[in-house]
């Protein structure tokens, strides 16, 4: 074997090797066609190398011409692979040009079989023996050019134009990788195609007596492309390493977070759990991973949780779970803990996972409960103090039915003492006595409920009802202080969630304050108590007086404890009222009226069913 044979065999074998590597890459990732096209390119280069070697060793012009004719098939595959590889791999290049080149090249292949002895020669009359370096003799053709050879030559020029254009586009797009790719692949292609094309043209036209030596150019192209694709494989490896590092960081962060973290996939299966999750839920990590997340949801909510999860998948936004509701998690031992849950979607590929962060809020709940208890106790004390102020009024409210009862009873005695006794009057009188007795009972009941010391409870309440109840309690006091109350109660208000006694306490306080504000202003002692819906769907109760108003510096200060403008009282009333209202999720504030006096406003959130 001479060095030419060795070189051509090595180039063919190397092309095949590079091609097969990319074929394997393509088999792993079928959606990427660039490696497949490269394989086609490399494989046709391999075949072409063999054909070219055969041509150089052709025994006769007929053999040479026939071999060259069949080599055109491989050249066509080569050109087509180059066009579409560039188009795919660069993501650039004019599409119409790609189609035009492909069409012309196929046309040339057709002409190759129907005109001349092949597309290059009309006829090959003889073979020249050309001596290469080292005295190796190879065959070079002598013949007449096929006029149709212009078709593949135009194709070559267009191919160069296409590659140049695509490379420039890629270069302009910027990025170190893209530029290197444009330079290496684009440069090698342009260089080799023009060199090979020019060389072939010289031989065909007979200007140069030499063997057709195309393979080295093709091989350079294969090497350049292979290098680039290999670079990609390396990049994938680097990416994998980065990914592993990022995964490690993610896990480190997840482990360090003081909340329990779970990653739940679209089927509701836990795919990851951190150390804190073991503490919160009482399961070993191995017992959590690969099991349905519903096992952490208390039995009574499990069924609805599945639906809620599907709902979340429909609108995956980072948000808190179950806003406005108390959430509980179910531990391994069956006990329940109050939790706060934050959800954030994580999309991997087409699958949606949810990162769930669960905080055990048992301690916070306990602190909240303790402070709520204190607030309730303080509210109770202040209520008792307030009832002291109202005691005259309450006594009067009780006195009225007692008066009616006594007079009715004594009237009955008198009718009975008459002769004959007027029994006919008795039924009516007794009915009235019973009615008055109920009325007295209701007063006692109201009094008792205000005096009762118990934990605040939340019930759906009609604010108008609470207002009317408070006005009933105040009735006699208002009369005595010559204060006229006009109530403007909005109809069809949404219900609020609250403790009846505490809200009544707030209203009584506001009414008493309103009366106090007007003491000494003897004319037009008028309070306006108003209920209305707010723009954001809540309920506002306001009490407007016609007193002297509040100095604007004090509008906020009056809600501080021990700040009072009155000669009596501790100055705790409004401070406690505010804490009650805020515990209801509402607001309590004061404004001055445009004409005279001040208004205290209390906004309560509507009940969320």
């Amino acid at each position: 074997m001479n060095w030419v044979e060795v070189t051509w065999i090595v180039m063919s074998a190397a092309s095949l090797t590079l091609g097969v590597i990319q074929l394997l890459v393509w088999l792993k990732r079928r959606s990427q066609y660039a490696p497949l096209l490269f394989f086609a390119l490399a494989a046709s280069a391999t075949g072409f190398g063999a054909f070219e070697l055969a041509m150089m060793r052709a025994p006769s012009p007929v053999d040479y011409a026939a071999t060259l004719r069949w080599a055109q098939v491989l050249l066509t595959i080569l050109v087509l692979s180059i066009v579409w590889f560039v188009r795919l791999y660069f993501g650039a290049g004019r599409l119409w040009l790609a189609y035009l080149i492909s069409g012309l090249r196929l046309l040339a292949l057709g002409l190759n079989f129907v005109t001349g002895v092949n597309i290059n020669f009309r006829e090959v009359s003889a073979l020249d023996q050309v001596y290469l370096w080292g005295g190796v003799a190879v065959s070079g053709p002598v013949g007449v050019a096929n006029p149709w050879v212009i078709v593949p030559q135009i194709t070559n020029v267009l191919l160069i134009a296409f590659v140049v254009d695509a490379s420039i586009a890629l270069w302009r797009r910027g990025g170190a990788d893209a530029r290197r790719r444009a330079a290496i692949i684009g440069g090698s292609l342009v260089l080799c195609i023009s060199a090979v094309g020019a060389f072939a043209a010289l031989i065909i036209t007979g200007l140069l007596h030499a063997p057709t030596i195309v393979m080295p150019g093709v091989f350079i192209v294969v090497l350049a492309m292979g290098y680039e694709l290999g670079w990609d494989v390396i990049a994938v490896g680097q990416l994998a390493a980065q990914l592993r590092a990022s995964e490690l960081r993610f896990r480190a962060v997840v482990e360090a977070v003081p909340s329990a973290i779970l990653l739940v996939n679209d089927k509701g299966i836990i795919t990851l759990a951190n150390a804190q999750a073991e503490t919160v839920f009482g399961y070993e990590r191995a017992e959590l991973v690969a099991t349905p997340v519903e096992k952490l949801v208390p039995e009574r909510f499990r069924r609805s949780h599945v639906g809620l999860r599907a709902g979340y998948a429909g609108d995956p936004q980072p948000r808190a779970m179950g806003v406005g509701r108390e959430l509980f998690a179910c531990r391994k031992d069956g006990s329940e803990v109050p939790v706060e849950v934050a959800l954030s979607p994580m999309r991997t590929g087409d699958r949606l996972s949810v990162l769930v962060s669960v905080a055990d809020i048992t301690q916070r709940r306990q602190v909240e409960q303790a402070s709520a208890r204190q607030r309730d106790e303080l509210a109770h004390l202040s209520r008792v103090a307030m009832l002291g102020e109202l005691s005259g009024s309450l006594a009067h409210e009780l006195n009225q039915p007692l008066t009616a009862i006594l007079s009715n009873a004594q009237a009955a005695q008198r009718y009975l003492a008459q002769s004959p006794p007027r029994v006919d009057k008795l039924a009516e009188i007794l009915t009235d006595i019973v009615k008055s007795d109920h009325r007295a009972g209701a007063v006692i009941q109201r009094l008792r409920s205000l005096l009762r010391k118990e934990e605040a409870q939340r019930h759906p309440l009609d604010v108008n009802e609470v207002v009317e109840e408070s006005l009933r309690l105040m009735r006699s006091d208002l009369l005595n202080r010559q204060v006229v109350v006009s109530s403007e109660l909005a109809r069809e208000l949404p219900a609020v969630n609250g403790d009846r006694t505490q809200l009544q306490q707030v209203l009584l306080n506001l009414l008493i304050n309103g009366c106090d504000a007007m003491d000494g202003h003897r004319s037009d002692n008028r309070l306006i108590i108003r209920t209305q819906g707010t723009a954001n769907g809540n309920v506002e109760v306001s009490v407007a007086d016609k007193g002297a108003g509040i100095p604007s510096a004090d509008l906020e200060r009056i809600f501080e404890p021990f700040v009072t403008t009155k000669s009596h009282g501790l100055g705790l009333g409004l401070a406690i009222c505010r804490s009650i209202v805020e515990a209801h999720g509402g607001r309590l504030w004061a404004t001055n009226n445009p004409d005279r006096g001040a208004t205290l406003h209390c906004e309560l959130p509507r009940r969320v069913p």
Partner: protein
Amino acid sequence: MPRMQPAPIVYVVDDDPDVLKAIERLLESEGLRVAAFPSPRQFLERYDRDAAACLVLDLAMPELNGLELQAMLERQASHLPIIFLTGRGDIAASVRAMKQGAADFLTKPVDDALLIATIRDALARDRALRPARIERERIAKRLATLTERERQVLEQIVAGKLNKEIAAELGTVEKTVKFHRANLMHKMGVRVVADLVKLAERAGVGSTPRT
């Protein structure tokens, strides 16, 4: 009494319908004639100023309270005896009420015997004072019809002056005094001077004592 008088009326005003009805019923069981009103305004619109009556009045009421109603009646020169009923022993209010001439001041719940006795007492007082008061009012009404000159002449007559002296005092002639004298005696509905003097005394005309 020479004439048969209608039974006296006990007016009751209380804004609490239950109390109002019970008091009304109690008084009716005693055989009293009762007119009950749930508000001072309705009472003011409807009560009979000339009837023999007394008023049982609640102290604390919206719009117009008991003391204000009492003051209003006073301004109307009503002599209706008022018995206050109050829920609480408000000393300041009771003192004010009594100073304004209240007949009595009772606290709720009120015992029937006490209430009825107080009412009967008030009615009896009203009955005793009423004829003299009616007479006084009749005279006052007639006095109001006198001209300024006639009134001056009347005062002189009551002082026991003679026509001639009166004429000198008022700077006129005796004839004119005689004319006024005849007119005023006609207006006062008396024929003899003795009756005129008696009337004038009752009405408190002529402060100077006769010699």
